[in-house]
């Protein structure tokens, strides 16, 4: 075994004995000894740090996660608690413990740009960790703990500057962004040295089980075998329950996941409902006309653009119009042009938006704060106008807002407006416990996005039952989306564990 020892003190002693340098002061001598004694880490196990953190009262499950990760998982883990249980706190506890124990000297934290300041503040205020938000000329060699966005980190020259440092710990927030192993950011994280590493995500499986494979292969390559062995094992597990349990077991060796109900905290209920909506005859007609465009012009034959149009038509004519108009410009023949023009005229003549009417009905009935999530900026603007005409105040929110603007909008919503209308990218990193109605005006393809949205309100500090309204228009693409969402939730539950209700209280079996 290696024993490290320095002769520095022996040399210093010689200098004093020879009278080259003076002796020191007894008080400092005594203090120095007591500092060492007080701060001595006397046990390999157990958490040393929480007792020093006066600004933090960690919850039982958070302490347990920190201990499990350090002692059982040796500091490499996926923290996959459900949204709102405090994954940041858990990561902070683990980082602090390693800093106190001297096992980590330098740490790198990658977080979405919108959350960087929140990380820095929490680490300072709750953990007394002097974290720095990375700017263009931040001297990385002097920063013990630095926080930056994945987008910045993967680009030159930042990428090279990061590689030049020797980080003992890597923490990645919203790690589901690494689900695809063909991306630049995946490759970047793969080539980072990961002595200790935490991947934070409430949603380790979003679409399929290979995303989880990719995440775990970043953390511990080989833990789930290589790609080929995993593929054959998982397809076997589709028919074999024993295999299934084995996979879950392996996953649980590197992943900790608390569900709200395991935390010992009283959680308010989550009431999730799918609200079916009928198009008016006019809306239905336009929807069909749009579908029919693919038979008229090659511009509309691509599956992807058609799906976008269908989804937009389920949202608002404003959103649809923008896309139609753009696509029309690619039409070459006069006939095509006229057909599209005709559809657009029909579209703009619509005077009722059935979905918006339903949303209004819910908002009016709630007589309380409501968040509406939409996928389209045009629908966001339309909804604000529509609600305004009905005498309902609202504020807009999206992920591109900087911190000040976010805080201001949150404040406006809390104090003055009844409704907050957010686009998808506004879903991460705002906490709105004072509100307990969420309308998913448009459905995303990915169930975990719904979970993230719900997590904005159904989190620690929520005092009321939370009502979730998932709007879906009958006989449209939205019903297909619902089916797909159910299928993805099923995969998640198979390998990761049960989920709280996202779509509706009743699980659909496929």
């Amino acid at each position, binding site marked *: 075994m*290696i024993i490290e020892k320095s002769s520095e003190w022996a040399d210093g002693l010689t200098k004093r004995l020879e009278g080259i340098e003076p002796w020191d002061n007894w008080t400092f001598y005594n203090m120095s000894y007591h500092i060492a004694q007080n701060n001595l880490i006397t046990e390999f196990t157990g958490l040393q740090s929480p007792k020093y953190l006066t600004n933090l009262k960690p919850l039982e499950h958070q302490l347990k996660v920190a201990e499990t990760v350090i002692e059982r998982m040796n500091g490499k883990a996926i923290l996959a608690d459900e949204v709102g249980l405090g994954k940041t706190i858990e990561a902070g506890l683990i980082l602090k413990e390693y800093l106190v124990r001297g096992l980590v000297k330098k740490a790198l934290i990658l977080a979405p740009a919108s959350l960087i300041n929140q990380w820095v503040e929490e680490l300072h205020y709750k953990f007394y960790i002097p974290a720095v938000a990375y700017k263009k000329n931040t001297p990385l060699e002097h920063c013990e703990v630095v926080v930056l966005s994945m987008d910045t980190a993967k680009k030159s020259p930042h990428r090279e500057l990061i590689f030049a440092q020797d980080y003992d710990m890597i923490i990645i927030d919203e790690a589901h962004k690494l689900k695809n192993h063909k991306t630049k950011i995946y490759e970047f994280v793969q080539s980072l040295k990961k002595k200790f590493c935490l991947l934070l995500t409430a949603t380790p499986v979003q679409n399929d089980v290979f995303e989880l494979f990719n995440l775990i292969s970043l953390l511990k390559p*080989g833990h789930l075998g290589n790609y080929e062995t995993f593929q054959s094992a998982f397809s076997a597990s589709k028919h074999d329950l024993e295999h299934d349990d084995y996979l879950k077991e392996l996953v649980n060796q590197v992943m900790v996941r608390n569900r709200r109900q395991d935390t010992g905290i009283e959680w308010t209920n989550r009431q999730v409902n799918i609200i079916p909506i009928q198009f008016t005859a006019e809306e239905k007609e336009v929807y069909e006309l749009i579908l029919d465009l693919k038979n008229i012009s090659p511009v509309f034959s691509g599956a992807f653009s058609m799906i976008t149009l269908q989804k937009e038509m389920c949202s608002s004519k404003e959103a649809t119009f923008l896309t139609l108009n753009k696509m029309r410009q690619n039409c070459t023949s006069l006939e095509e042009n006229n057909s599209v023009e005709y559809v657009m005229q029909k579209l703009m003549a619509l005077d009722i938006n059935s979905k918006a009417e339903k949303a209004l009905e819910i908002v009016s009935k709630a007589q309380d704060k409501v968040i509406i999530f939409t996928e389209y900026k045009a629908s966001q603007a339309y909804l604000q106008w529509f609600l305004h005409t009905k005498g309902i105040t609202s504020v807009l929110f999206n992920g591109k807002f900087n911190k000040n603007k976010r805080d201001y909008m949150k404040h406006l919503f809390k104090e003055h407006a009844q409704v907050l209308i957010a686009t998808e990218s506004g879903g991460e990193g705002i906490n709105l416990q004072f509100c307990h109605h969420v309308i998913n005006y448009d459905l995303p393809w990915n169930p975990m996005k719904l979970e993230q949205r719900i997590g904005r309100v159904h989190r620690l500090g929520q005092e009321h039952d939370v009502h979730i309204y998932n709007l879906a228009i009958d006989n449209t693409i939205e019903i297909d989306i619902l089916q797909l969402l159910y299928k993805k939730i099923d995969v998640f539950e198979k390998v990761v564990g049960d989920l709280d209700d996202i779509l509706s209280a009743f699980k659909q079996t496929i």
Partner: protein
Amino acid sequence: MYPQQVQQYLRTFFLENNCQFVNDTDHYLTVQLTIDMDKRIMNRPYYWQYVETTGGVPCPAQLTLITDQTKLTENIKGELVHFGSPRLSQLFQVTHDMGSFIQMFEQVEGTINRPILTPWLGVNYKVSYYSNQTKELLHSLGINLMNGNIISNFHTSLNEMNIAPSMPPNAFLLPYVIKPNRGLERLDGVVENAIQQDDHSWAEQAKKRWQRDMRVLEFFYEGVEVRPESYEMEKTALEQQYEARIKIEVINGGIFYLK
């Protein structure tokens, strides 16, 4: 260290360094630094260079340090100082630098005979065990430089004596039989011996974890002829994560003339 202990420590530290308190409560303090302390901890060499070359009036800084924010009712701006904060680490380092080597004499009073004092070398060691976990031990040892007798818990036993940096009048200091540097080697030997006798199952376990994780890694790259850079990177990371290391540090020590 808890906030009260930090507060207590700061108070002693600045008092001992002749810095005056402007405010002194149980949860924060404002201290007027001396020129010397300013130079040591405020990290502004250009300012001091400027003052000294222009002959300007030196204006050492005032520092407000808050140890317990939760008790703060006043509107006070200052640095939060906690266990683990950079400021406290800095002050610990200064304390350490200012208290590494000591020479002390036991004070003997009222004796008619000329008191005879025996030289001892006292050393406080910190031993750290590292793998993916840590544990630390303190060894405070003293060796009688006349007869080579070694005792443990040396620092604690000093607390019961009346010792001071100056030699009591009249005292007769016995010369060393064992040179201090030889004494130090013997004490080092005692520490190393204690390490050898200790239970090192922690290192065995770390090795097992290391081997297990290596097998997992090898499996991932099985059949890959040319191993990519990430493979080497993972290997290094595992080494750093699990390799068992032991570090011996001297906290401080010195020569003690005792009865």
